[in-house]
């Protein structure tokens, strides 16, 4: 049986979505001339500023293009659903935001994205644009601690891009922007749980099977299997299980500060996210960790998947400054 979706033609969904987004956010976004899958910030890219290009597959909205704007990313390259963009739209983004101070590529650590962005970086070098790459690897569930470089990038992208975008907007040097981007990634930890599958517009079939009373801890944002499947438990138990893993790695001391993101994978409603956030607050209070800021909602989705993720960013003064730095994007504002 096909899933229900409000679409026209599944193979046109990404382009039709982009048309709708540009219609909704003309003050913030435009597409690069001749490259409709390269979404560029109207305000932000400028001479002497390190350019920040993010990107990846569609289906995670508002990640990636919702975070394009002044103070955050300068451009996003848009792929098909759950598929990396090819090198060309990435290259066009780099050209559009190049201010002569270097261009930072930031995206989640997936084999396809790495190959396409690396090819784009090689092409940019031929145009005398210096590109450096910082991969996000915040998904604690996707590889053991000693193999952090193999982990996937998931909802923590939001914090990591935010910090890097602020560094770029503050006109810091290429070295400093890269350092802060890497530090932001090192300080960010995410765990997710999935309750029901999503379906691609082109197939309209559930992309994995899961029992009516089951959940999967650690499932990826494309429905990649996680670390354990179990019976669906309560919000408190799920939140505890996820936070235990995160805190075990982050190892915060009493008095440390964090930023919190409780994110819906698509169809899990705010009510459930706030119930989880209640537990996050209690647990952090218990161990004496203070919350500098909390975001709750749809930040990195997986189409209509049900489930949620919790992300903590372990803050120091510098990262806190970067998170507090104002930004004005199509789908997110701060400061």
């Amino acid at each position, binding site marked *: 049986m096909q899933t229900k979706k409000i679409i026209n033609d599944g*193979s046109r969904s990404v382009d039709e979505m982009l048309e709708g987004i540009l219609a909704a956010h003309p003050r913030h976004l435009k597409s690069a001339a001749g490259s409709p899958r390269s979404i560029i910030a109207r305000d932000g890219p400028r001479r002497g500023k390190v350019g920040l290009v993010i990107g990846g*597959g569609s289906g995670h909205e508002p990640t990636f293009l919702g975070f394009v704007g002044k103070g955050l990313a300068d451009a996003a390259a848009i*792929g*098909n*659903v*759950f*598929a*990396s*963009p*090819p*090198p*060309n739209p990435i290259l066009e983004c780099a050209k559009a935001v190049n201010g002569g101070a270097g261009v930072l590529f930031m995206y989640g650590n*997936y*084999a*396809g994205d790495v*190959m*396409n962005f690396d*090819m784009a970086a090689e092409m940019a070098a031929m145009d005398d644009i210096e590109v450096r790459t910082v991969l996000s690897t915040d998904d604690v569930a*996707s*590889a053991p601690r000693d193999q952090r470089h*193999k*982990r*996937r990038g998931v909802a923590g992208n939001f914090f990591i891009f935010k910090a890097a975008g602020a560094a770029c907007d503050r006109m810091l040097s290429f070295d400093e922007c890269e350092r802060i981007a890497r530090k932001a990634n090192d300080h960010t930890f995410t765990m997710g749980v999935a309750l029901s599958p999503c379906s*691609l517009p*082109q*197939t309209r*079939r559930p*992309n*994995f099977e899961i029992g009516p009373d089951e959940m999967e801890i650690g499932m*990826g944002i*494309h*429905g*990649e*299997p996680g670390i354990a499947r179990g019976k669906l438990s309560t919000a408190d138990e799920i939140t505890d299980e996820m936070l235990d893993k995160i805190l075990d790695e982050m190892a915060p001391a009493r008095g440390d500060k964090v930023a919190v993101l409780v994110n819906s994978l698509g169809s899990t409603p705010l009510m459930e996210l706030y119930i989880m956030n209640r537990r996050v607050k209690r647990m952090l209070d218990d161990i004496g960790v203070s919350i500098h800021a909390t975001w709750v909602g749809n930040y990195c989705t997986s189409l209509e998947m049900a489930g949620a993720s919790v992300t903590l960013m372990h803050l120091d003064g510098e990262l806190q400054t970067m998170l507090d730095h104002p930004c004005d994007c199509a789908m997110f504002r701060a400061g």
Partner: protein
Amino acid sequence: MTAIDTAGLKTMFDEISVAIEADRDRLCQLDGVIGDADHGIAMALGFGAVRDALAALDLSAIEPTALLNTAAKSFLNAVGASSGPLYATAFMRSAAAVKGKAVLEDADVVAMLQAMAQGIRDRGKADIGEKTMVDAWQPAAEAAAAAHAAGKTLTEILDAAFAAAERGAEATKDMIASKGRSSRLGERSLGHMDPGAASAVTVIGAMRKGLA
């Protein structure tokens, strides 16, 4: 001796696009088990774009190298994903392997297969045994070279390549993925065929049909 011209190569790509389109849902299902369920979509999209791009070429005016480079670019720009860079690199390397030839003889077809396999290995930084499409492509290229060295006909060469690819894909069921998206699964990837190896078998089967 067979001599394959640009029309013959176009026939090969047409066969691949038909075969992959027919196999689309099975590939998505294989990918759904250990990946993100889009492999069949990406492959069908890519080879559909190749078919359309080749249809727009004046085949009498170009050499195999130009045709293969057109295939590479059209596949890459339509797909992205993992298969985009991998197959685009495969076709670019095969284009380089037959540079200057107006028609391809048996040795050129073997060189093309070897260049494709090497290109996929290089771009994906993967080796045999890591549960990827390399596990089908590499044995296929080796079997083709061995059959050619043994003086076999093109049909026999491509039969050998196809059989080796099938065995290689089958063998991925007993492998734990260490490259690509399923590598985060560890032992949970055991028992499942790698979708990239499965589609490689389909591609090589269609190449056999189109060339031999």
